[in-house]
């Protein structure tokens, strides 16, 4: 049983995302997200080398610049503006949530074992497991957090998972589709950032647990 470089990158990205669940500090979360996305960029690049194509290299550089540098920078700026340092956490304590994330990471290997990998793809099982695990981790992150900004982190992790799943289960997507997805993510982040500031302005907090209460002005 050999393990390819792409699979190593994907599994590292999934594990780094699991660590995100374990910390309530927003900056630590951002650093881990940035590193995890860098691993995903590396996975894209190595998978391009395995298929001996040059197009995805461009995508890899774009992911590294946009998703692992620009988006964390934007959120770092937003954290400063919103004056929040750490999440409050909901329901379960972060270390226990991290144990759950690692359990789901293990579970995703069992879940994806039977997925038939397409002809010619080399990163079938482990890649799919990493992708599904990232989706689980993102969901867990969204479930166990109270601040709106952490919900966006969860969304970004899920997006990474979907991207990884598509990357490893196909023989390469068209360049234009990948660029479209990247643009969508960027716009999504910008819009959610705007929403964050809006919520902060009208409610004076960004705690989603309290957003269900009606407020009179």
């Amino acid at each position, binding site marked *: 049983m050999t393990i390819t470089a792409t699979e190593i990158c994907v599994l590292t990205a999934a594990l780094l995302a699991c660590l995100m669940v374990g910390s309530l500090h927003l900056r630590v979360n951002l650093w881990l997200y940035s590193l995890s996305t860098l691993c995903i960029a590396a996975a894209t690049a190595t998978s391009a080398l395995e298929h001996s194509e040059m197009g995805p290299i461009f995508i890899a550089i774009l992911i590294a610049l946009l998703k692992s540098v620009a988006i964390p920078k934007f959120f770092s700026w937003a954290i400063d503006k919103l004056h929040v340092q750490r999440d409050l956490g909901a329901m379960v304590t972060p*270390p226990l949530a991290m144990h759950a994330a*690692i359990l789901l990471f293990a579970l995703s290997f069992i879940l994806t074992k039977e997925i038939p990998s397409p002809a010619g793809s080399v990163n079938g099982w482990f890649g799919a497991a990493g992708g599904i695990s990232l989706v689980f981790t993102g969901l867990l992150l969204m479930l166990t957090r109270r601040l709106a900004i952490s919900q966006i982190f969860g969304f970004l992790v899920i997006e990474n998972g979907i991207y990884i799943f598509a990357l490893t289960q196909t023989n390469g997507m068209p360049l234009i589709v990948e660029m479209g997805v990247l643009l969508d993510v960027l716009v999504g982040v910008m819009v959610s950032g705007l929403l964050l500031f809006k919520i902060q302005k009208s409610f004076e907090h960004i705690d989603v647990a309290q957003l269900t209460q009606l407020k009179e002005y």
Partner: protein
Amino acid sequence: MTSLYHWIFFLLSVALLPVLVLGTIRKTKARLQNRIGPPLWQPFYDLVKLAHKGETLSLTMCGVFRLSSIVVFADILVLAWLTPWLCFKPWAPEANIFMLVYLFALARMFTLLGSLDSGSAFGAFSASREATLGLLVEPAVLLALVALGIFFGSSDLRVIFSLSSVSTFVSSAIWIAAGLAIFFSSLVELSRMPVDDPTTHLELTMIHEAMILEASGRNLALIEFAHALKMCILFGLASQCFLRAIPQFSTFNIYAQAGLNIAGLLGLAMFVGLLESLTVKLQWRKVPEFIAYILSLSLIASFTAIGIGAIK
């Protein structure tokens, strides 16, 4: 003939390395505080001084207090013989993972009994803390060792650390995860910095130092040496794990292996000194979280081992 050399080197390192490791930690801390610090052999002089001092015993004590330090010392010596914390080790019988973990637990239990027997409030206080920590950290250590056991298909540490297996990327990853888990849980087990400050002057917050507060003279020397030897065993085990992660390690000759082994041990001691200078003690309520992080390292290691086993 080689087995005789192994015995000599082993006995020498059991006698000298604990002192050296303690000295290294103190020297590192002193240098980081811009002090020259005590010489490396200062713990040895301390032990000699303690051995010549008289002993004071509280009136409420029964025999358990004196007995406990002897049992702990003997137990740690047996552990030093069984645990593969050094490359050059004389012949030893089977070192089962579970037996080793519970021999450590036996040492802990007798330390607790001794501190309860001393009848001081501080002793009982710290004994309850030590019991809590022991309860929490045991699954982390056990899972880390069991992960190695699953990967190598044996619960005997001699087989696991025998250098016969081929090294792959995955095996390196498991070795590193297990080594990190063992190292960080040894910090909890030895009540060192992120969990407890061994050099604080406040008995209320101490764990291990408050338990041995009533010990004096030879008794204290015995306990101190046993504690230092336990530190050596645990750090040595962790450094062995890290060295096994180097793919070419099994091809080195025995002298290089032994040198790297001792260098790794002292390197971990220096790292502990660095950690104790740079970090602050965790809040007591935060310690379970710290242990939970260690547990997640062990979980990663064991799941990887199970997964690889399933593929094979």
